[in-house]
């Protein structure tokens, strides 16, 4: 792996590009399709250079219609391809829902395994980049209620690379949300070795003993910063990146809470029936007697993601996470 050893550190979005390029080079059935993914290399540059390498029938600019992209993707997947579709923004993904919910998610199930849908829909996801309306939503909970889907949200360059490889190789449909606010937040060395990371598991990013902080996507950044701030005050916080929202690896969260007795769930999506509610419910069901304080949720408010002048006030910040953690520690 000389090339990997010599590689320069990359950003999260470069991790996406690197994973797509690796898998396309090693599996002829992988194709990329979407709006502006070809010549333009994607509006965020996620597919830059791929059409030059793999040609216009492996990296396909489609007509401007998300229904089309989703329907073509289902058809291709059923006929033996592994399409990776791009929804240009998560706010434009809704025309795809009928194909994803009524067909992709139930293709294997309803045909008793005769047909299947090994597809990936990638979408830049979440707020925080001062984008126009409909470009900043955190809508993972909508998908988490659908049987048959997997939902993955990476929060680092290495996890973007490893989890996207796993998503493409997975035999079932995967919704892959990319936290656009941290697309270029920092770089790390990600060996281009084709090694996938496991789906369906949480990643413990920091060990701690006093409180468990659980998050995913871009707010993993603020959650880690909150852990630093708590440490400065002598509080040891464990930080878990859920990464795969569905199916949820509850065991990792449960094990942590068994030790800490306290849990703060952080997500930028609205609070009501958000994925945090599922985690809190499972803690109530399975960890009630391990908890020494009520579970806290630090989330977006139950209103629309505001236009960008107010968007950072909508999203959970470090201070709100620290305060919530301290509230759990006030109980003993």
């Amino acid at each position: 792996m000389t090339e990997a050893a010599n590689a320069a550190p990359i950003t999260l979005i470069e991790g996406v590009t690197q994973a797509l390029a690796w898998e396309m080079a090693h599996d002829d059935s992988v194709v990329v399709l979407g709006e502006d993914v070809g010549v333009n290399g994607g509006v965020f540059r996620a597919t830059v250079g791929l059409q030059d390498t793999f040609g216009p029938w492996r990296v396909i600019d489609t007509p401007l219609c998300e229904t089309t992209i989703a329907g073509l993707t289902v058809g291709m997947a059923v006929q033996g391809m592994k399409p990776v579709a791009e929804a240009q923004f998560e706010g434009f993904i809704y025309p795809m829902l009928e194909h994803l919910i009524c067909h992709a998610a139930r293709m294997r199930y309803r045909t008793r395994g005769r047909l299947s849908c090994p597809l990936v829909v990638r979408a830049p996801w979440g707020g925080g980049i001062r984008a126009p309306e409909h470009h900043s939503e955190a809508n993972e909970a909508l998908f988490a209620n659908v049987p048959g889907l997997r939902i993955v949200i990476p929060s680092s360059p290495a996890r973007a690379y490893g989890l996207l490889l796993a998503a493409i190789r997975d035999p079932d449909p995967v919704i892959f949300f990319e936290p656009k606010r941290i697309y270029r937040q920092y770089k790390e060395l990600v060996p281009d070795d084709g090694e996938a990371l496991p789906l369906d598991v949480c990643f413990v990013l920091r060990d701690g003993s006093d409180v468990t902080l659980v998050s995913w996507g871009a707010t993993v950044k603020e959650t880690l910063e909150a852990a630093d701030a708590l440490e400065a005050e002598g509080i040891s916080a464990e930080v878990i990146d859920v990464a795969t929202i569905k199916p949820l690896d509850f065991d990792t969260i449960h094990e942590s809470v068994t030790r800490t007795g306290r849990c703060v769930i952080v997500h930028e999506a609205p609070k009501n029936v958000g994925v945090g509610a599922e985690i809190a419910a499972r803690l109530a069901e399975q960890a009630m007697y391990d908890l020494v304080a009520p579970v806290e949720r630090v989330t977006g408010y139950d209103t629309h993601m505001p236009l960008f002048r107010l968007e950072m006030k909508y999203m959970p910040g470090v201070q709100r996470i620290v305060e919530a953690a301290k509230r759990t520690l006030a109980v003993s």
Partner: protein
Amino acid sequence: MTIAASFEIEYRQYLDTDGNPIGSNLPPIARDLEQLVAIYQLMSFTRVFDSKAIALQRTGKLGTYASSLGHEAAHAAIGSAMRPEDVLAPAYREYAAQFWRGVTPREVLLYWGGDERGNDFAGPRNDFAWSVPIATQCLHAAGSALAFKIRGEKRVAVSVCGDGGSSKADFYAALNSVGALELPMVLVVVNNQWAISVPRSRQSAAKTLAQKGIAGGLHCLQVDGNDLIACRGAMDEALARAREGGGGSVIEMVTYRLHDHTTADDARRYRDDDEVKAAWQREPLGRLRAYLTRLGAWDDEKDGLWQAQCEARVGEEVDAYLNTRSQPVEAMFDYLYAEAPLDIAQQRALAVAREVRHD
């Protein structure tokens, strides 16, 4: 005045309502009596099956069922014109097309009888299962055609929707992408005049539904959907053109839904008996039988024998369906994912534990 674009939609009919040939320029299928007899037998078998399925529903032995009565020529033309390696993305009543391709009557009954195994076709393994969400199958066929094109395979994808389906975004999206990406696909609109209770006139102000394909740059044709020879000739032409890279087509087959939308519907609430009686005068089965009889390829004696065979075969299929035991409770978890995640495995075990078995 400068005309930027203009178009015409050709209409084809080769058999009049009495089965007499119209004109002299009949397509090749009109002379292939052996195949026409096989197609007639398929249409007639489908009608026997359909009548039995409705009876099963009426006696509580089948769930809601969508009849294909009156659509037999359109559906038989679609199925018989396709090659085995082509892919069909049906709506939910194209039984004649599916029977020709190897779907069994017991699979149809299992599906409408509430059992997912009906979608596990023993025959055409790559064909799509029934698509209840309207017109979504048009894009799945387009995606299949895209896969064929990328892999350099000479296969064609065919989808079928109704007059109602042609109003949906997916229909327009499909014909647009088939044109823009130059995909080997045939999109058939079986226009049976009624989308449950809403008539064709309320679906669109377009004079024909075929002309919607003009907007996508496709070949467009309207045929008498009760004339097997017209339907089959149109399919042969469109499939051959698509297979050779000559572009996709929209074919509108104009027919009539002689039964209710499904067994859960009562069409007497919204349409006149006179209209239905008039439509029976144009129905497809008698028309093809008259044509074949006139040419000496079929007669009443053969028809009587064939009807008896159909009854016997349908009876066997119905028995097989009625004797198929329900899936065990864990079936609702199986095949959800290739490999069950922990949550699903746990819920499956719970459901199995709760099940009181009587066997």
